[in-house]
């Protein structure tokens, strides 16, 4: 007699596909936040599983800081073309030019926080009532408590102490006009799950996730890619290192890790042995205060 087993990855996929379909059925105008990072790349595969052979019932939205890794943009455009889906680009540069936000200055300037305004403006402009994101609960303390269907008020704000209870797989997709939902199909995935799924599904990734030699400089104990958007401090020097990226964000705040992992198997072996969380290892944006992520999320960040 056969046993009706599902592996952990299959169970996670089943749940994520269910979340996608619930969202599509409950909201009229969703969008999928696509950054070109591995989590949003997995979202695209799950959306294929949920809706093919039909097209996705939502466009993709990329919030472009103008400080992307070129490899990410190249990947984004190729992937969107392969899928034949619609991409909307919301540009932080436009927000700066229109005076909606002010560019930070100095050697530690970053456009990370400015993205929130660009994102909320895009949601308003296109009248999106839901935005699907790739955030996971294992990433960060504040995210561990976020709902899968997470409510945002008319200012795009998250109120962590007043969240709707979420039970079984019965998601409450109701919002009032002007409010929206953030929906996180990968809530229950870990970093390792994402990598194992990428391997299992044979999903191509941007090249910077694998070890390569590149110009880097060290700041606050982290390695950053040399890039035209960051001014070096007097003691900082550019050097060549073999590195890869565990997360992909803005060039100005995404650190690299030293690595010789050139294949998926090697990356997975490294992730499995890692002793530091991916955001702790590589994201300056989470380091400012103890509740940096919670604060940005309250304002409407991803």
């Amino acid at each position, binding site marked *: 007699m056969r046993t009706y087993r599902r592996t952990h990855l299959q169970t996670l996929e089943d749940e994520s596909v269910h979340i996608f*379909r619930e969202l599509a059925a409950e909201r009229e105008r969703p969008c999928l936040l696509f950054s070109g990072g591995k989590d949003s790349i997995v979202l695209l595969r799950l959306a294929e599983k949920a809706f093919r052979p039909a097209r996705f019932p939502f466009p993709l939205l990329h919030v472009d800081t103008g400080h992307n890794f070129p490899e990410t943009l190249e990947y984004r455009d190729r992937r969107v073309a392969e899928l034949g889906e619609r991409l909307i680009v919301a540009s932080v540069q436009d927000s700066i030019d229109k005076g909606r936000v002010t560019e930070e200055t100095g050697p530690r300037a970053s456009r990370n926080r400015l993205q929130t305004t660009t994102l909320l403006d895009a949601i308003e402009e296109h009248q999106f009532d839901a935005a699907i994101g790739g955030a996971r609960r294992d990433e960060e303390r504040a995210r561990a*408590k976020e709902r899968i269907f997470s409510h945002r008020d008319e200012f795009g704000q998250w109120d962590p102490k007043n969240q709707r209870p979420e039970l079984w*797989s*019965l998601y409450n997709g109701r919002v009032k006009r002007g409010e929206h939902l953030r929906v996180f199909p990968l809530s229950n995935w870990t970093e390792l799950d994402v990598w194992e799924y990428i391997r299992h599904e044979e999903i191509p990734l941007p090249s910077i996730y694998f070890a390569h030699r590149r110009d880097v400089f060290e700041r606050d104990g982290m390695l950053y890619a040399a890039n035209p958007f960051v001014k070096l401090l007097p003691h900082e020097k550019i050097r060549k290192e073999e590195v890869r990226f565990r997360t992909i964000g803005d060039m100005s705040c995404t650190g690299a890790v030293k690595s010789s992992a050139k294949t998926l198997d090697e990356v997975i072996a490294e992730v499995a042995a890692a002793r530091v969380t991916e955001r702790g290892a590589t994201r300056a944006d989470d380091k400012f205060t103890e509740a940096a992520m919670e604060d940005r999320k309250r304002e409407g960040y991803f």
Partner: protein
Amino acid sequence: MSGLDEEAELLRFSTAGSVDDGKSTLIGRLLYDTKTAFEDQLQHVEDVSRRRGDERTNLALLTDGLRAEREQGITIDVAYRYFATKRRKFIIADTPGHVQYTRNMVTGASTASLSIILVDARQGLVEQSRRHAFIASLLRIPHLVFAVNKMDLVGWDEKVFRKIEDEFRDFAARLDVQDIAFIPISALTGANVVDRSADMPWYHGPTLLYHLETVHISSDRNLIDVRFPVQWVIRPQSDEHHDYRGYAGQVAGGVLRAGDEVVALPSGLATTITKIEQHGRPVDAAFAPMSVTVHLADDVDISRGDLLARPNNQPSVGQDLDAMICWMTDKPLSPKGRYALKHTTRWTRAIVTDVLYRLDVNTGHRDEAAGKLGLNDLGRIRLRTTTPVIYDAYRRNRTTGSFILVDETTNNTVAAGMLLAE
């Protein structure tokens, strides 16, 4: 997080215990001993503990995520934690011990296959342990583990453990739980959590982690009663797939195969499954919790909210519902209240026709004079819906037997409900 076997299964469990039972220490211990807690997280916890002047590194801080929680030293909300061993991947729904305990325990329990109830060996059976066990049984969690903690503080005494075990067995006999285990541990020292304890040679059962890794969960699902709530109809608007019409959804019960005769509810039309697929790949047998797309022989009118079942094994269809609910908001539920109701993939509206009783979770006493239910109350009510609901009793199927109520003015989820038999 050592290399997880690709074939490894997923186990969701919840934890419950009062503030001083050492629940957070136990979770910290599981994360730490399975090498899941990361160095930067531990460093962070050590830094904060030192700043607050805690005597020991406070592993509880690993699980307290929100600023208000850290400031007040309490856990407000259900937090989800993840760890894995070679055998299984685990999702922990960590529910707070006192603040909003019923609402949070019910939430955490709703997706759990197992619940760990922490008991302080020095205190034994207390009111809160009974309450936790009762809610776990109400939510139909198939496996309960009583972790008798702080055995180090009672001199690792077998008599203390056996006395608690006996008391609980008596109490648990009245609960509707299939599988109960008792494990003596010390979360502080790690005894019997991951590694066997030399201090308790009289205990021959499994360690807590071994139990979590091996408890038999595949038979928890209902593989008998075919239930397929239609979630989404896939109809590509393209020439290539002109005639494609797929009914997408997540199997809630039973096993579906191509060639099976099914009936669509509520219409009652009978047809046959021609094909089941996942992303273009044919599926031989679909069972819970698989997300699949089903193709049918006849061009029947089926849409979201409908349900496929076998003709000779059909769920109830009705507008008068009898349910146990947990009330989750400040404004009380009262007779004649009107709410939006979500059940499987269907929204309808409901009016409360009767509040039969409020249930005291500590004593099991039914207060029939209550008349209404307040925040964190459990009780039995009757509802009348505007359209038929296709359901099973919750004890038969946790998916087709559960629902939520939503306040239509605020859109807040205000209640969790478990349907009783017709």
